């Protein structure tokens, strides 16, 4: 199944051999560097669901672009980005009026966007195209897609380097940042970076799986580091490892890599939860045992 990506006639991903796997590996690595640090911030600011919401929301844009311009990857990307901008902007606006909490505002906007995307795609393109958008088709990762993934990673890392103090301030204490006169546009910029990474990954690995590779490694990283920067670094490593392992296993099984990569990330998360030095199960148990050993003294 080649989905709606750039077709490579007659080549299933598994059969496509080394070239596709290499391209996919390079794309996944880029996404790890761009997405995982953003995921760390999303989790730290309790906005894990926002990534999910955005990943659904971009489907409408991609579907509209698909109907207007067919399988043109550039059109799909631009459509998805516009949808992300609209979903983020509308829900931020709704939240700003303070009638709804931010996550509810997102839900109110992204679910209709997802629904409209599903209706559009099912009527005009058939279920395979929809499935490819949600779960990805590694064969869709052509040179253009790779350039996009690399650009998304570069833009994200540069923006993080430039604005990290603002992003952190806005996450830790939104009221303070607002009183300082920033806030609004920083938040929008941050959400656009998240959207850019989702868009870069969604054709190859699927909208749902890209967000998984952004969030699950970031969650696992919390078991290894206490500070934000350390967590971001570990999240990149977990994401890259999950992508690499996922690609190899998927090629063996002859299935789309997005889902397998997600499962690998989940396995690494479980490992982190078990062995992690920062609140991992084993460390906690060892600590309890030490305490229990001392207990008779009292």
């Amino acid at each position: 199944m080649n989905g709606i990506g750039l077709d490579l006639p007659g080549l299933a991903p598994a059969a496509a051999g080394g070239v596709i796997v290499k391209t996919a590996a390079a794309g996944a690595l880029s996404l790890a560097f761009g997405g995982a640090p953003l995921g760390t911030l999303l989790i730290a600011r309790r906005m894990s669901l926002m990534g999910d919401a955005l990943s659904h929301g971009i489907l409408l844009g991609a579907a509209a672009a698909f109907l207007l311009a067919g399988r043109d990857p550039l059109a799909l990307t631009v459509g998805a980005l516009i949808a992300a901008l609209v979903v983020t902007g509308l829900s931020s606006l709704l939240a700003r009026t303070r009638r709804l909490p931010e996550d509810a505002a997102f839900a109110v906007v992204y679910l209709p966007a997802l629904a409209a995307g599903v209706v559009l795609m099912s009527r005009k393109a058939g279920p395979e195209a929809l499935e490819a958008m949600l779960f990805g088709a590694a064969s869709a990762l052509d040179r253009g897609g790779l350039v996009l993934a690399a650009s998304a990673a570069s833009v994200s890392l540069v923006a993080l380097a430039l604005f990290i103090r603002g992003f952190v301030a806005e996450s830790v204490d939104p009221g303070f940042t607002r009183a300082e006169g920033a806030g609004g546009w920083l938040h929008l910029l941050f959400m656009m970076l998240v959207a850019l990474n989702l868009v870069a990954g969604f054709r190859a690995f699927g909208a749902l799986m890209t967000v998984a590779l952004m969030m699950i490694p970031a969650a696992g990283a919390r078991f290894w580091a206490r500070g934000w920067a350390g967590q971001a670094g570990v999240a990149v490593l977990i994401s890259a490892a999950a992508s690499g392992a996922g690609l190899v296993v998927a090629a063996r099984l002859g299935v789309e890599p997005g889902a397998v990569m997600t499962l690998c990330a989940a396995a690494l998360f479980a490992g982190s939860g078990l062995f992690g030095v920062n609140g991992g199960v084993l460390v906690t148990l060892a600590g309890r045992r030490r305490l229990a050993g001392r207990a008779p003294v009292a």
Partner: protein
Amino acid sequence: MARIRICGLSLGYAGEPVIRGMDGAFAEGQATAVIGPNGAGKSTLIKALAGLIAPMAGVVTIEGASRRDIAYLAQDGGVDRDFPISVEDLVALGFERRLGLFGGVGVAERERLSTAIAAVGLTGLERRPIGALSGGQFQRALFARVMVQDAPVILLDEPFTGLDARTTAALGEVVRRWAGEGRTVLVALHDLDVARRLCGQALVFARQVVAWGPSPQTLTAESIERARALAEGWSGREAA
């Protein structure tokens, strides 16, 4: 020195005014306690002065400083204490306005950072995650952030709520020092003793000005009783 002047100020939420047509000016370079019963609109007033809520009518002018020269400490802090950030980094957020988004924290800032952390008694805890601080230590860190902001106008909304006597005394000393440095400080409080001790000026407030002036003349039993009577009036109406 900065002077805050209020003219015909009406404030409210969802189109319902809480404060109507308030006039007056806060003494420059001094600490003013804003005293009033629950629901008196103290937080609303302070947020409006910080520029966080737009007036329904009237204006707030800040003479001798710009809108951006205000340090504001919210009542509940509004800080996500689970965020993975150290005490030092939290305090350093106070540099944001001075350095802009791109400026780096240099040697001079490092020095001010450690001076501020020492002034609130948190030396040695710089690298501790904020999630591992006690309530009192956390409030001390927020005071250090205000210190680092080095603003001519400082607005504190119930900064001592839930703190033990020792922390209240230590942070109260910081408030007095700010006023001594000629900063215009507003502190919403409900403890009259603390207000008398820390603030030369006081505003007794119950959705309207009840009394305003030097603390000894303002914080009288009569003005407090009047504010309470006004509060009973509106809480009765709202319950009905």
